[in-house]
């Protein structure tokens, strides 16, 4: 009974914080709408790929014809020089080069394709990379099913038409979790400043119990917001979750816990609530972009990579993308999960040493 009352009070307080809901769910929904409508979320934009066949074997011809059959791709063929120039001119999103000897190497089991990307347009580069990856995965899958001579399925390459909106939605889910949970520490700083924690100190309520109530309430809110966001994305833009929803939900909880822990750790260093506001913004904005919520940061310059890999949100977004866009299972997100767990433990250590309830 007592626990229910505690959770009820904490959850009600969260639901009534309009600013919190607006900055997290509101921002995510608006971003999705903008990107969805602005970049043609309804899947009419095709990825333009140039195919250079230097092998001239049966297999390479089959690959080319399959790619041409796909609805999501627009294929041009030509020689290396022509296609590379077209790529430079912005006429291609990517160029696939099938090198000489590809067919024989395929039989031996170690064939390689060369792929050239146009990195200039960050948004379409993201989709292109996903598409190419899907193509290659599919080819690999088909090849592995055939013993002996390699023949490819005549149906065409099964490329899930991944659009900008498919890329952005998991990123928005991650970003929303950040905005919704990072501020938990700030709430405690506010309470401390207003004298609420002092008033509570005169009651039998243990600080840890109150904090636990807050955590559970925020997790519930995160799951609720996540469900709303994904439902909207599905309903308006037909964004699918190709992987396990249960796994996604688990990752939402883990991601939220990571942000909560980080939020408490940050608050441990803040004495006044005005400082808390600016510190939060200072951390949230870079994290939102470096974490890859809006664009693919995997192709970012080398000097940024350490920063990107130091951002907890990066792993959260990657995990969401793996599950939603690729239907990935546990093995693909393992590292990400471990990193999140490490962040939680590190944050908890900081809180244990530095956080002041009164």
């Amino acid at each position, binding site marked *: *009974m*007592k626990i229910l*009352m505690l959770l009820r009070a904490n959850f009600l307080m969260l639901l009534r914080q309009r600013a919190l809901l607006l900055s997290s769910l509101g921002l995510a929904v608006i971003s999705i709408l903008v990107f969805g409508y602005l970049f043609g979320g309804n899947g009419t934009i095709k990825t333009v790929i140039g195919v250079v066949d230097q092998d001239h074997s049966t297999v390479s011809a089959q690959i080319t014809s399959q790619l041409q059959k796909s609805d999501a791709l627009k294929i041009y063929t030509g020689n290396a020089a022509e296609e590379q120039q077209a790529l430079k001119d912005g006429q291609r999103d990517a160029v696939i080069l099938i090198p000489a000897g590809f067919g024989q190497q395929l039989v031996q089991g170690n064939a390689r394709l060369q792929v050239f990307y146009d990195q200039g347009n960050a948004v379409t580069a993201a989709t292109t990379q996903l598409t190419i990856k899907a193509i290659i995965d599919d080819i690999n899958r088909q090849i592995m099913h055939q013993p002996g001579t390699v023949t490819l399925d005549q149906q065409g390459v099964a490329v899930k038409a991944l659009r900008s909106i498919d890329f952005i939605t998991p990123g928005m889910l991650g970003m929303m979790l950040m905005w919704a949970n990072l501020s938990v520490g700030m709430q405690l700083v506010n309470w401390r400043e207003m*004298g609420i924690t002092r*008033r509570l100190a*005169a*009651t*039998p309520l243990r600080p840890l119990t109150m904090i636990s109530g807050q955590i559970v309430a925020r997790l519930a809110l995160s799951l609720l917001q996540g469900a709303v966001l994904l439902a909207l994305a599905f309903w308006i833009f037909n964004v699918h979750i190709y992987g396990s929803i249960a796994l996604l939900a688990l990752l939402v909880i883990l991601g939220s816990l990571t942000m909560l822990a980080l939020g408490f750790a940050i608050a441990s260093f803040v004495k006044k609530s005005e400082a808390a506001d600016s510190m939060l913004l200072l951390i949230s904005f870079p994290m939102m972009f470096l974490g890859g919520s809006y664009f693919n940061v995997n192709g970012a310059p080398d000097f940024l990579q350490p920063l990107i890999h130091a951002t907890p949100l990066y792993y959260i977004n990657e995990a969401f993308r793996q599950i939603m866009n690729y239907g990935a299972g546990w093995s693909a997100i393992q590292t990400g999960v471990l990193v999140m767990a490490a962040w939680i433990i590190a944050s908890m250590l900081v809180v244990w040493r530095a956080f002041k309830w009164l």
Partner: protein
Amino acid sequence: MISQTHAMAQQAHKSSNGVMVDVHNLVKRYGQKTVVDNVSFSVRQGEIFGVLGPNGAGKTTLLEMIEGIRKPDAGTAILAGHDIRKEKRAVQNLIGVQLQATTLFSELTLLETLQFFRSLYSQGLEPKQLLHDVALEGKASAHPQDLSGGQRQRLALALALVNDPKILFLDEPTAALDPQSRRMLWDIVLKLRELGKTILLTTHHMDEAQLLCDRIAIMDNGQIIALDTAAGLIHRLGAQATIDCQLDGKATRIDIEELPGVTMVRQANARYMIYTQQMQSTLIALLTYAQEKGIALTDLQVRTPTLEDVFLDLTGRELRPE
């Protein structure tokens, strides 16, 4: 072991004697400054005990140490037989506190706030009934920020009563309130004493102390400088009445001191404060003196001494600086 048992028996004996709050040598320092300096007193069951002193005297810090919110540097407080340092949970269950400036969760309604606080205890009163008792029934769905100052203090009082505590701590319960709200709050406090509750309050208002408190401890600069009933404290002044007046230059302090019945004279330029045991004789003599010497006597006020006078006498300063 034996001494410990002995001490506990003493405590049990004391609380059966009716001592609800027993404070021994409490000390609190912040850096070089000693904010609470070796304070001791005890509060009897059913008593309203006041700590009267100017702002900065250390009243709030003292109260917070007894409530268990602040850790003392030295000394103990024993509430209903429980040592605050060792049996904090037991103490928390039987006290209710009203802090000086109460801000609450702005997102919850009054009723929800009361329900939340009520859920922290295993026993207590019904939130809706409490709202009724403090005359805030109509505001059950309002939020704390929508309340006036007086309403907010009544809410804070309701919160303090949520577990039907034996001991209540009120820190400046009517600070910054209008006269009507003050009276409302006083009525509630007096009713609470009728219910058998023990109340410990702090204030810098002399009228509040005089009206509500059975006994008053005067606190200044971290120390208790006097402890007695209001009447007892005033009696110590040795004055039955005070005559305030303004006398022009020709009057001398010595002359005034020699008037019949005068026990003490305070003078600041032309303003005189004359303490007397025989008000009538002194007054007649004063008027005669002024007439004979041709001294202009203005702003004459005759009143009974108050705790302000007691404080002034003890510290040389005014209780409430203008």
